[in-house]
């Protein structure tokens, strides 16, 4: 079945569709995930157009009187912040920086020429004693003795699933003590992608670990990512693992205790 075009979805969002067409579109998006995703994306476009002044007078009126709700006002503010955060800026510091770089480059090119000895000059040869390195005898190794076993690495494992809860109160807990060397996170995915980018951060904090192009494992059922992360990247408190792929951006939060 073909998906409805953008203008129909925009009219739906602006409350401009007659009831029968509205019901038909709703009947379809209840049954088709793809269509619901399209409507979500079209809503972003509509909000962006409103923020950038790209709607007609009538659309603008319908946007403000039929589309906006308190939750959507918040999304409009987010869109405005995103627009400002991503717009190209005129960087006033670029001119002095460029001048400094040019001077540095000029000095690098010209300095050897200025320092090069003229043909009539006799080069000065310095005589320095050669440096000696003390010779350390190699340790005596008993080749017959078995090598000492490497210390066993203690790994804690946490499996993270896409949430089915209605609230954030049921956050998975990762209990760590000083004996743990690394953490193995298994994130279950709903994705067709073969590679993902991953970041780990503390809630409202900086990224503490990241990896690009991590291969998705599919053997034995659901696709999942398996990540082994050093223990020292974790602190007590809430953490957020973000997985991005071509068809997915998923957040997994968990608590470290």
């Amino acid at each position, binding site marked *: 079945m073909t998906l409805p075009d953008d203008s129909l979805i925009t009219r739906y969002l602006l409350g401009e569709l007659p009831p029968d067409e509205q019901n038909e579109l*709703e009947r379809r998006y209840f049954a088709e995930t793809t269509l619901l995703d399209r409507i979500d994306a079209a809503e972003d476009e509509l909000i962006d157009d409103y923020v950038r002044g790209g709607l007609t007078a009538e659309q603008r009126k319908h946007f403000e009187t039929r589309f*906006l709700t308190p939750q959507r006002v918040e999304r409009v503010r987010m869109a405005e912040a995103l627009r400002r955060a991503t717009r190209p800026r005129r960087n006033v510091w670029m001119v002095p920086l460029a001048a400094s770089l040019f001077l540095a480059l000029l000095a690098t090119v010209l300095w050897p020429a200025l320092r090069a000895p003229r043909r009539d000059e006799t080069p000065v040869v310095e005589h320095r004693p050669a440096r000696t390195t003390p010779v350390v005898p190699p340790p005596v190794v008993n080749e017959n003795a078995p090598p000492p076993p490497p210390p066993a690495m203690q790994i804690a494992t946490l499996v993270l699933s896409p949430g089915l809860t209605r609230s954030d109160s049921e956050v998975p807990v990762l209990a760590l003590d000083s004996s743990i060397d690394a953490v193995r996170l298994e994130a279950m995915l709903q994705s067709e992608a073969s590679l993902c980018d991953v970041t780990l951060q503390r809630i409202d904090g900086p990224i503490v670990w990241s990896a690009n192009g991590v291969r998705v494992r599919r053997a034995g059922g659901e696709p999942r990512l398996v990540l082994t992360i050093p223990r020292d990247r974790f602190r007590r408190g809430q953490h957020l693992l973000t997985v991005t792929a071509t068809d997915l951006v998923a957040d997994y939060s968990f608590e470290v205790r």
Partner: protein
Amino acid sequence: MSAKFKWVLTEDAFAGLLAWLDADAQTAARKYEHVRCALIRFFETRRCFAPDSLADEVIDRVARRLAEGAEVWASDPYFYFQGVAMRVHQEELRRRRPVEMPFVAAEDAENARRRLECMERCLETLPDRTREMMVNYCTVDKSGKRQQRETMAARLGMSVNSLRIRVHRVREHLERCVTTCLK
């Protein structure tokens, strides 16, 4: 006077609902998430006061019917949810009018500044390729928007619709991040 008790969704009823949606647990979980999102969209479009709560009310009613052993006749479970949603909406209209938003109240300058700072910080936390995609996507000018998005999608090896959906997912992530940052 008889006391009325609100029915609460039990673990068994929830499991029954998931089993009704699909025999496979993972598929059922995905269908459940989809139904809930569709219900929220349904109530949002009708400018209801609390779309999330109303969506949960619909799910609870369907789960209850199933738990009580009622036979649910619908060619597709989704249509049954839609029917219940229409009834819940009618009841909601009798309880209160749709939300009225005659204008967008401008955000005060201090809040807008903090929100921008948070957005910049949240953008910084994205992987490089994702951040670059967002910046390119958001900075297209209106006149060449279609052409630029087609070029961008081709470069990323996806359709324009897939690109838009991917950008939507990143925006959702950014909005959650900014909301946390503002707290």
